[in-house]
């Protein structure tokens, strides 16, 4: 068994301190493109969580048998394996969604977050802990994506998950079409990053004045 406080540490670091989007601004390529609708974003988020968690587990299981020089190759292949699984399943059971997401599911392979977690964590840690780390890194990423998507769909279309919201779908609200277009993604993410960083800057200055 893994000690529970270590797991808690890993979870917290993955969700906030090392949140790939807020803190490192990594892997946002695919983050922005699919966030115009909440539903698309949830599927994309699920794909990322699935891939990070399972590739973390697999890379960690294989770490003792992987020669160091070819470990990057192995990591890429493991990640690609899970991405292909997800892509094929989506194509078979939900072809409409597969068309909506276009190439972005495949592009998860080049998402720096997944490779980063495999390289930085799964390579040196036991399988179960790597699975937890991957799971919550993926969830941290998916949460940011969802925040962006909620703002964009609500302001841009007046709905959430396709359901019209009170007020926002009424004539009182002029829909901000710009929010579902590409610039809206940049602006929304910029504001969210700004908020997260301001909170962090305040936290850091508090820590400094205390010590």
């Amino acid at each position: 068994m893994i000690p529970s406080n270590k797991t808690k540490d890993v979870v917290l670091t993955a969700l906030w301190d090392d949140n790939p989007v807020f803190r490192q601004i990594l892997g946002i390529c695919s983050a922005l493109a699919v966030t115009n609708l909440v539903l698309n974003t949830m599927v994309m988020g699920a794909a990322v969580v699935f891939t990070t968690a399972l590739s973390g587990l697999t890379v960690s299981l294989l770490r003792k048998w992987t020669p160091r020089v070819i470990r990057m190759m192995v990591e890429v292949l493991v990640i690609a394996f899970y991405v292909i699984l997800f892509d094929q399943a989506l194509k078979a059971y939900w072809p409409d969604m597969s068309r909506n997401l276009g190439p972005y599911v495949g592009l998860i392979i080049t998402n720096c977050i997944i490779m980063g977690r495999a390289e930085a964590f799964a390579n040196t840690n036991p399988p179960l802990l790597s699975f937890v780390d991957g799971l919550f890194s993926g969830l941290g990423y998916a949460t940011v994506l969802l925040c962006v998507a909620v703002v964009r769909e609500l302001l841009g279309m007046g709905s959430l998950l396709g359901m019209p919201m009170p007020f926002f779908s009424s004539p009182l609200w002029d829909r901000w079409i710009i929010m579902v277009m590409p610039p809206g993604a940049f602006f929304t993410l910029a504001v969210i990053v700004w908020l997260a960083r301001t909170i962090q800057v305040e936290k850091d200055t508090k820590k400094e004045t205390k010590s």
Partner: protein
Amino acid sequence: MTIGNHMLHLLVVLFAAVFTDNILLARFLGMCSFLSVSRQVKTAVGLGFAVVFVMTFTTALDWLAYKYILQPYAIEYFRFILFIIIIAAFVQFIEMAIERYSPVLYQNLGIFLPLITVNCAILGASLFMVIRDYNLAEGIVFGLGSGLGWMLAIVAMAGIREKLNNARIPKGLQGPGITLIIAGLMALAFIGFTGVLSG
């Protein structure tokens, strides 16, 4: 289709890839290096050229591989792996060739080449090409246009960010925050090109 028509069609594909459907500003690909390498115009130009070059050739290679390896055996789902291997191998090969034959070019371009393997815009261009069912000529022109569009965006961004060095920006907004806002404004400007194609 006459030759004139054909050329016009290719021109439309090129124009769309550079301006109206810019791979960075409308499709959000290649953001990581866009945010981190856009501080200076000089480096942005270097990386831009490397991307144009690699993208043009890899779309061609990927098209051939898709048509003559994946499709005949009906194993299209292997395209993610095959495309990545082709891109990595091509970049590696070019790096060795440049180092051997043109040390000057290697000094200017060499450091950017490894960065390109992980640039999702390169893989993205190939995937878009497959989804849109382009033929070889369209694919190459699309790769060239996407590369040029990416370069245009990163060089423009670097130019703006050089000017921003003297601006006073709120602490939380420095770095990625302000860059994203500028990118949003640029995307807004690029949407203006849409009328050119439909009109």
